[in-house]
């Protein structure tokens, strides 16, 4: 037993050494090399290119341009996988509801005060990540999950009855998530519907004008690049993520008294 422990430890250390060796001298190449690979050059050329708008995403941030424009459909289905998982959770807990006055009123006053100070900061940081996702690293999912961390801090420090008192019921969280998902669908087919109504061609997930199609999402907001659908997708994705994940956490935080009503009751059988 003792020998196998040592063998496992040594082999894992060897794996780390090997990986580091690969990173330095082989496989991945040195970090931050100056010569870019052709694929990277092509992405950098077409991410923000005002001279060739028909090929460009008009967003200074390459990753968001790839994620929501160049491979928008992939990202759409990734998002739907996450939200189908949340649908499973909701189906498991159907009929559950937050009851007032079941147990204590949250954690101590020290925790509550520090949460009051920290949670708004996390919310603002998450919002800035989401709304600047087309300008700087970040995006809808990142910002949404940052904001979810703040919401879960609130849910634990102030107990889930706090949400109920602030009119943020389970149904309302579900509605927020559905609004976000619907907004994603609406944004992705907006130009197509416009083209069907006004004549001409357009594609789903179309951002800037393309060959054969002169329709375009707004690419500038005052003097800042807006990158068309990227901004709207990030916005609606963050709304959907904050609604969905907060709903999941609140469902997991439900107390025994509330769960007995749906598990032991037998009224759903």
């Amino acid at each position, binding site marked *: 037993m003792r020998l196998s422990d040592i063998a496992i430890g040594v082999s894992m250390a060897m794996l780390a050494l090997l990986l580091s060796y690969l990173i330095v001298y082989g496989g991945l190449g040195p970090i931050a090399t100056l010569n870019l690979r052709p694929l990277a050059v092509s992405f950098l050329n077409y991410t923000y290119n005002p001279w060739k708008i028909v090929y460009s995403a008009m967003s200074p941030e390459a990753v968001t341009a790839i994620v929501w424009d160049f491979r928008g459909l992939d990202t759409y289905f990734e998002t739907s996988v996450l939200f189908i998982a949340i649908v499973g959770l909701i189906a498991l807990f159907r009929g559950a509801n937050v009851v007032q006055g079941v147990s204590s009123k949250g954690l101590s006053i020290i925790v509550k005060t520090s949460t009051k100070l920290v949670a708004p900061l996390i919310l603002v940081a998450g919002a800035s990540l989401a709304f600047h996702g087309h300008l700087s690293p970040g995006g809808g999912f990142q910002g949404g*999950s940052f904001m979810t*961390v703040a919401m*879960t801090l609130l849910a634990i420090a102030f107990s889930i009855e706090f949400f109920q008192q602030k009119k943020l019921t389970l149904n309302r969280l579900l509605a927020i998530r559905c609004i976000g998902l619907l907004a994603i669908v609406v944004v992705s087919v907006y130009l197509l519907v416009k083209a069907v109504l006004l004549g001409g061609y357009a594609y789903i997930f179309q951002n800037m004008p393309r060959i054969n199609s002169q329709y375009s999402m707004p690419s500038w907001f005052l003097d800042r690049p807006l990158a068309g659908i990227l901004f709207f997708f990030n916005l609606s994705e963050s709304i959907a993520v904050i609604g969905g994940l907060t709903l999941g*956490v609140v469902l*997991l935080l439900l107390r025994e008294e509330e769960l007995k009503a749906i598990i032991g009751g037998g009224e759903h059988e």
Partner: protein
Amino acid sequence: MIVVSEMLPVIMAFVAALISIVATWLAVQERDMLIATLFSALQSTCYALIYYLLMAPDIVLVYLPVSVGILPLITIILIKKTERYEE
């Protein structure tokens, strides 16, 4: 010849990888699930640092809230509802 300042990110990534191995080992060995969750969060932090050193800030931003915020939280809720100590 590679200068030390160029090697620094690699050395940092190596140290973070070693710490993450130790943290993973401790998380597996630990009988107290709450402390095991904290070790797992430490391992996630090391991975976030490695992602940052490999120049993937977008992945860092999605990895930090999910693996250091939400995942330990859900695990702690699970531990609270079941048993804290492994037999």
